[in-house]
């Protein structure tokens, strides 16, 4: 008993560094040669650490207790229960279930897509080739209504025969015209010819291949301004079943064609175009599509060969959009669209009579 206390005394003196150098060296030596002493020292040190840890925790606890006392538990409780409204609790309760449900839904969707081959390269290839074929179809079946002059060589007053031809019409009375991009694509020079057979040279001043629109500006000094345009452009979308007509140059004489609006979208769901049930032929491309009141609602651009009576016309608001896109300061003359319609009340024959002076044959040389 006595020796135990002596031992503790010694160990404490050692640990608290109360020994002098010689005593310390002596104790270290004792520890080295006496493993029992050494383990006693280690044990005692651990014990003191336990007391220390005990004290630390006690202190922390009393600190926390005093912090806790400063809290307004009821208020916190209130705020906590308030935020956990029934929906939140429901959400929190079912978060995992929702996640699982969502995962299952996603997996099912992916599996379905995989199963139906939406993702497989093979399928996308067939889609692609189908699309390609369709593109070729468009070329073939929508075959841009350009008239090949070579096929029907005819004499012309000015005898400046173009290689290809289409139709176009005046945007303004001061020398701006619109036609299809595919009519003038790759052209060396472009001429317009009126119903009296006079030709004038024009420049392509703006093209929009995606909408198949080309805007032409007069380059010929012999051109005199046209009278005020009798028609206007319709900004809104026209309704299905609306009676429409077109005037164009599928041959050297101006030709009138009548039909109705059969769909609000063009070929393959093309939302920039209408489908029109109207007889059109090569050469009608670029001609105007007009409604009963003589408003221009579109620009004839092609037809589908395998389907009867399916022609397509670019919606008029895309023409207006193209006009807006032209940098005005690059123009010789101001490009102002008329806002007044002079032929709304006239009969169809009267309308056509007024109109035909503003419809031109587009002749393309390349």
């Amino acid at each position: 008993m006595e020796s135990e206390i002596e031992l503790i005394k010694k160990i404490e003196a050692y640990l608290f560094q109360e020994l002098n150098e010689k005593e310390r060296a002596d104790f270290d030596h004792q520890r080295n040669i006496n493993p029992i002493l050494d383990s006693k020292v280690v044990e005692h040190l651990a014990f003191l650490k336990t007391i220390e840890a005990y004290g630390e925790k006690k202190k922390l606890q009393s600190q926390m207790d005093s912090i806790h006392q400063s809290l307004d538990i009821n208020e916190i409780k209130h705020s906590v229960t308030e935020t956990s409204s029934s929906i939140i609790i429901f959400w929190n309760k079912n978060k995992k279930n929702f996640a699982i449900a969502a995962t299952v839904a996603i997996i099912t969707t992916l599996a379905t897509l995989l199963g139906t081959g939406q993702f497989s390269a093979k399928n996308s290839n067939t889609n692609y080739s189908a699309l390609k074929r369709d593109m070729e179809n468009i070329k073939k079946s929508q075959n841009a209504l350009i008239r090949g002059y070579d096929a029907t060589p005819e004499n012309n007053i000015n005898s400046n025969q173009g290689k290809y031809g289409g139709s176009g019409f005046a945007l303004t009375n001061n020398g701006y015209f619109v036609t299809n991009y595919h009519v003038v694509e790759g052209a060396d020079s472009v001429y317009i010819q009126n119903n009296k057979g006079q030709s004038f040279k024009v420049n392509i001043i703006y093209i929009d291949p995606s909408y198949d629109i080309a805007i032409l500006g007069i380059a010929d000094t012999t051109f005199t301004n046209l009278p005020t345009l009798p028609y206007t452009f319709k900004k809104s979308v026209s309704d299905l079943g609306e009676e429409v007509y077109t005037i164009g140059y599928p041959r050297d004489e101006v030709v009138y064609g009548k039909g109705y609006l059969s769909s609000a979208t063009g070929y393959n769901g093309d939302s920039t175009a209408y489908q029109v049930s109207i007889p059109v032929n090569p050469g009608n491309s670029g001609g105007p599509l007009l409604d009963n009141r003589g408003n221009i609602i579109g620009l004839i651009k092609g037809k589908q060969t395998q389907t009867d009576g399916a022609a397509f016309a670019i919606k008029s608001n895309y023409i207006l959009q193209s006009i807006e896109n032209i940098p005005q300061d690059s123009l010789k003359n101001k490009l102002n669209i008329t806002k007044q319609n002079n032929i709304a009340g006239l009969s169809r024959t009267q309308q056509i009579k007024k109109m035909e002076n503003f419809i031109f044959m587009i002749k393309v040389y390349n």
Partner: protein
Amino acid sequence: MNKNFKHIKLNDNEIVLGILNNSSSTLTYLYKLHFPMILQLIINNSGNDDDAKDIYQETIIVLHDKIKRGDFELNSKLKTFIYSVSRRLWLKKLSQKARFFGDINDYEDYVAVETDIELHEEKDKQFNLMNVSLAGLGEPCKTIIEDFYIKGLSMQDISEKFGYTNADNAKTQKYKCLQRLKKIFFTNNP
């Protein structure tokens, strides 16, 4: 001082530093910051205010010890760690009380804290044992031990406080107390 604290925002790093340096204001900040979260967890999982307090304080101790060990890596947010520890502790308590039915309502994400809990439980055992041993030691030994080994009073102070004639007498008394404490402690903890 407490009111001022509402306007100060400490990030996780600053809190860890504060705890490491025994900052009581950081402890206050930390304590107030996350108590509502744990209160919500406990009272919505068949516990009451007191349970929340116990669980939360135990959690803070776990965090405190972890930081003091130099073991706290900020790979998870303090908030997540606190929530995870409280959650685990409460699950244990529920299963001990045998009113645990399998799952609890969660309000936050949680991470695995099993090793921290195990370390804590070991420490907690020692703490309780020490608590019992000191209680069994009786006065004045208990206070002498606490004053010297915990509060860090000098033997001089202690001998004056207890009316010993000199520090050496007090020292001898302290050794006797320590020896008895050891005996009680190790008898209970073989």
